[in-house]
């Protein structure tokens, strides 16, 4: 039968182990590219152009403001983006087509004002250091957050 003294010792040791478990013996989880870290920059980072994905707005989400975000591809020279009313039109009749974006946080600017309050399809790609474009990202959708005030959309042909 365990004595009270032994039980107290055991409790002390378990407590000690608990304290250890709650500590981070090698430092905190801190890496800007880590989506689980406290200092996450807000978008994923990929090593190759083919890993690019659309990030914000998330699929089916709302676009607030004029900035869309795609995966940051390490060493990418430029990013390209296309937005269309249907997925089929992404390659044939995109409403917005940009291939000279230098950052993965792409400001659509005044083109946003041309978008109606419907679901839009969009995808992105990255230009590698070898001068070749990577594959398009999977197609995602979004809706502008508020109805478009109307006007003429600027459409840039590829």
């Amino acid at each position: 039968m365990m004595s009270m003294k032994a039980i107290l010792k055991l409790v002390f040791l378990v407590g000690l182990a608990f304290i250890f478990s709650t500590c981070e013996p090698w430092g905190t989880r801190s890496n800007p590219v880590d989506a689980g870290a406290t200092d996450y920059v807000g978008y994923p980072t990929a090593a190759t152009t083919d890993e690019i994905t659309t990030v914000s707005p998330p699929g089916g989400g709302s676009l607030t403001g004029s900035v869309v975000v795609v995966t940051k591809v390490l060493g990418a020279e430029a990013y390209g983006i296309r937005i269309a009313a249907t997925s089929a039109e992404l390659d044939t009749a995109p409403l917005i087509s940009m291939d000279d974006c230098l950052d993965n946080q792409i400001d659509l600017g005044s083109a946003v004002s041309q978008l109606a309050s419907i679901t839009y399809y969009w995808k992105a790609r990255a230009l590698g250091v070898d001068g070749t474009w990577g594959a398009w990202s999977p197609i995602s959708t979004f809706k502008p957050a508020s109805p478009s005030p109307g006007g003429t959309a600027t459409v840039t042909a590829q």
Partner: protein
Amino acid sequence: MRFPSLRVLIIILLASLVAGWPTFVFGQDATKAHVAVVQFSNETDSDAYDAACSAATETLVLTLRELGRYIVEPEQALPSGSGDEGLRSVAEECNLDFILYGRMSTPESGGILCNLSVYDRAKGKTTLSRSEKATGVLDIFNTADRLVVSVLESMTGGHIGFGMVALENAGEQGSYAVLLDGSPIGRDLESLDKVPSGRHVVTVMQKRMLGDREIASSSVDVKEGETTALSFAVPYLMDDEKQKVDGLRAAIETGWNDATAVGDIDTKIAEFASLFDDVTYSPKLSAYKDEATRLGGEWALQKKRLAVAAAKAQVNGGRIVLPWIPSGAKVRLGQESPLVLANEATSGFRSSVLSPGDYAISVGDIYNGRVTVVPGGEAEPADYRSAMAASLGAKLDGLDNRLAVKRKKTTAGWISLATGFIGGGGAAAAYYLGKQAMATYNAQTTTTGAASAWNTVSLYGTLFTVAVAVGGIGLGLSPLLLVTGPDPKALQRSIDDLDEGIRALGKQ
């Protein structure tokens, strides 16, 4: 008749007090000069004169003492070649009024030249120096004596005459020591040949069975050139010595037949013999010495007789025998003190011879019963074996269980200790690997790589926590399991003891 006035009487009284104060304060010694003697130096080329130098020094010291006018300090040593300066230094350091120093040398003209000088501290120089020449070795002692007397006469400013004291022992022909004015002169002397004239105290001492004893002490008035007789008697036995001897004899006689007083008589017989170890102070006492030897022999025989008589007396009694008693158990008869405290080793018990009769007996707190002692027999309580066997059986079961539990705890303790060490090692390894994984995580630049690396860090973190917990619990529990509880060896000894007891009880 005209009486002196009161003023004159007071002046006379004060003058007397002033003149006598040193004596009043310091006693007679305050008026005596302090004198030290330096050993005569042998400045001849022969060691043969060392003895003459020593003899001359002794004569000088002795004569100075016998004169009674000086306080003779211990012999002094002088730095060689120091002259009056060295003498002054010694005199001041030792508070000496005079230093006497001498030498013996061989002049070119032949013979031995004896020289004795006196350094006077008050005058700061050697004030007296005399020499006498001896014609040869045989003459040197007389020459030295004459020189000593000559110098001392000059030093004291008066004539020093010598007389003789003849000692006559009218008692036992024992050895004795003679002291003159408290200083030892010699042993078994029949006369003191050169005693300075004047009043002296001659004392005769003996070392006897009860210590140093004064046999005679007498004040004698020695006159120059005359012989003064002093008679004394060495006693055969002094009164207190006789009382001591008679007392021991009576005590030995009283306890001679008492078997319980053997140790006491041993001591007294040894003391009786020791009184007569040395009877040179009264040789006729050797008769007592013979008696002590005879008494010792007879006592050795008497002790055997007493032992035989005691053995015979025991035949009429009987003993109590117990086939086995537990270690440390006390056997008591009735309310009496324990008869025995058993040794660590398991053993049976056999009492001393007891008077026949019925006794209540107890063994520790295990057994209480009764037994009847018969003449010449060995009795065992009738129910002793069955009662002890039942008690021992129950105890044995309990001890077996405790030992089994203790062994399991010990095994668990070792396992726990090993687990503790394994946990500790695991924790160290997990810590090391986790640290490396963290470095890998920090180096990640892609989201997928960072997520994957963090999974590894988390895995080692979990492993580290578990290992620390396991190690801590293992190391913490092991001493509790290993150290606490009864000592297995002691338990095993107790079990062996009980086993032995059960076996012993089973024998008829």
